[in-house]
């Protein structure tokens, strides 16, 4: 602050002025947004928890206690879906972070055309996910799509291959699309963090004869670690909750091969009108994500302490 001397005088004027106190004024400003979130997010969340203990369908249901939960947890199919969701999240987030880190390094390299390259990375983030997925749907087309066609031309495939028609290939294809959707934002954040790293550090290392790879490993990575760690958590949450991509590409099929928890919840509740059982699955998502975030934030604290960031 420049005007430390003016500060007390100003505070005195503030105190003298009648009307709303600062705290009340602040709450008046926040209230509309808070009330909106309360009605559209907080209340439905509580209602989801209540519904998860009922057998609500199209008509209002009866209280069934923990029945939905025991049924859900004893269903091998549900446990398979949980496993698949975590596999989906871990694979997709790791790829996003690795490709994002490589992409950010490339985009920060001092070569002509840099500004243009940075701009060209953003379109997948700008357009609606569902519309980008229509593009991928066509790329994955077995008879006439680009990927199948090119693979045949180069002799990788002997005939047409429907990427979305088999359990495994559909799962990995959906991951590729998810990585495509998420990578631009991750790269962008890493790039911004890299530009925030002090030049002096690099110059000092360079004068001491450190090579590029060494500088990347020992300066860039530690310096941007807090951003890497927080982007990892954010992408994990988004990936876990990702709906549009799978719904447009496969609607959870074939034979459940791409059904993650969010798709399973949607199908149960909105597809089959089993609101009670669907709510139980929604609560499971919230609990798992909550536990995951808590675990992760503990780790984040450790990492930040280790790298000496407040």
């Amino acid at each position, binding site marked *: 602050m420049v005007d430390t001397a003016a500060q007390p005088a100003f505070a005195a004027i503030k105190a003298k002025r009648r009307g709303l106190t600062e705290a009340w004024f602040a709450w008046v400003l926040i209230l*509309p*947004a808070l009330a*909106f979130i309360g009605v*559209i997010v907080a209340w439905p969340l509580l209602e989801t928890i209540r519904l998860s203990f009922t057998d609500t369908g199209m008509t209002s249901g009866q209280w069934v206690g923990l029945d939905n939960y025991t049924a859900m947890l004893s269903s091998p199919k549900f446990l398979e879906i949980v496993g698949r969701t975590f596999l989906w999240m871990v694979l997709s987030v790791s790829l996003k972070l690795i490709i994002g880190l490589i992409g950010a390094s490339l985009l920060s390299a001092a070569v002509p055309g840099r500004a243009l390259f940075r701009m060209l990375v953003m379109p997948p983030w700008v357009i609606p996910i569902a519309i980008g997925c229509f593009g991928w749907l066509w790329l994955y087309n077995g008879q006439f799509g680009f990927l199948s066609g090119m693979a045949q031309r180069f002799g990788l495939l002997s005939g047409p291959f429907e990427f979305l028609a088999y359990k495994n290939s559909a799962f990995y294809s959906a991951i590729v699309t998810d990585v495509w959707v998420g*990578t631009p934002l991750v790269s962008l954040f890493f790039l911004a963090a890299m530009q925030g790293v002090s030049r002096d550090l690099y110059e000092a290392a360079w004068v001491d004869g450190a090579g590029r790879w060494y500088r990347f490993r020992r300066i860039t990575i530690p310096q941007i670690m807090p951003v890497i760690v927080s982007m990892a958590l954010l992408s994990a949450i988004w990936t876990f909750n*990702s709906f549009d991509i799978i719904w447009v590409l496969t609607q959870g099929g074939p034979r459940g091969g791409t059904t993650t928890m969010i798709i399973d919840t949607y199908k149960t*509740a*909105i597809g089959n009108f089993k609101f009670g059982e669907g709510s139980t699955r929604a609560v499971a998502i919230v609990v798992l994500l909550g536990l995951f975030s808590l675990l992760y934030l503990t780790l984040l604290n450790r990492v930040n302490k280790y790298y000496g960031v407040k």
Partner: protein
Amino acid sequence: MLMDRYNLLQKIGIYICIAMFLTFVLLPFVEMIRTSLSPMSHLFHAPYEIWTNEFSFQAYHDMWIKVPLLGRYIVNSMYIASMVTAITMILVIPAAYAYARLEFPFKSISLGAFLAVNMFAGAVLLIPLYRVMHTLGLLNTYWSMIIPGIAFLIPTGIWLLRGYLEKIPKELEEAAYVDGASRLYTLRRVVLPLATPGLIVVGVSVFIGAYAQQYLFAVTFNQIREYQPLAAGLFEFFGYQSVEWNQMMAAALTGILPVMVVFLALQKYLVAGLTAGAVKE
């Protein structure tokens, strides 16, 4: 800088890697553009050929006939996104100001609560929301797609705008306040005009977000074709017999043109604004 110099071999390596990275990012777009310009006879022809001598804009003409409501879908998308943006900004501006400038009890807890909303996808809350919409008679109206959209953009909006407001020098407000202006007057006449560039960036980010997120709410809460946004309306190109891929891609590209133009015009500011939190001051 000498340190940043690359030799020829390194430069070539970097460009090859950038080319690979951009190929992955842009491949769907290039293929969408190619498809939109190709006649169906070329697309439904094996083996796959990239080039044809019959490239034309025919699909951009036919798509309006094949799906007569296409124009309506694009307008719907714009309308829903604009309404979401307008209402979100009205709610976000005062709240962001409070978090940027004022001291009050439960400040960090309530900000954390706002940000925690990011943890819930719309899909988790759909069940009770569906019932709320049903009770209020909002199912199958524009509002069923606007209202949930706002809720999920408020947290990001507050976060981004707060960052901007914090950068405006406090002295100007204090001067107005000392001169006897009320808090509300100061906010309206001093802070907001100064924050205009920030407001535009946050508004555009919210608009892009609102344009992007319509699909889930549209397929769940709305069954009336006349109200559908583009992402849901594109499904009409899936015919009973075959899919008119060239027209569908043409429609998709036409529909994303407005957001792309806005993005390209403002991309420099948007990128800086979005990542402000990632850079240490």
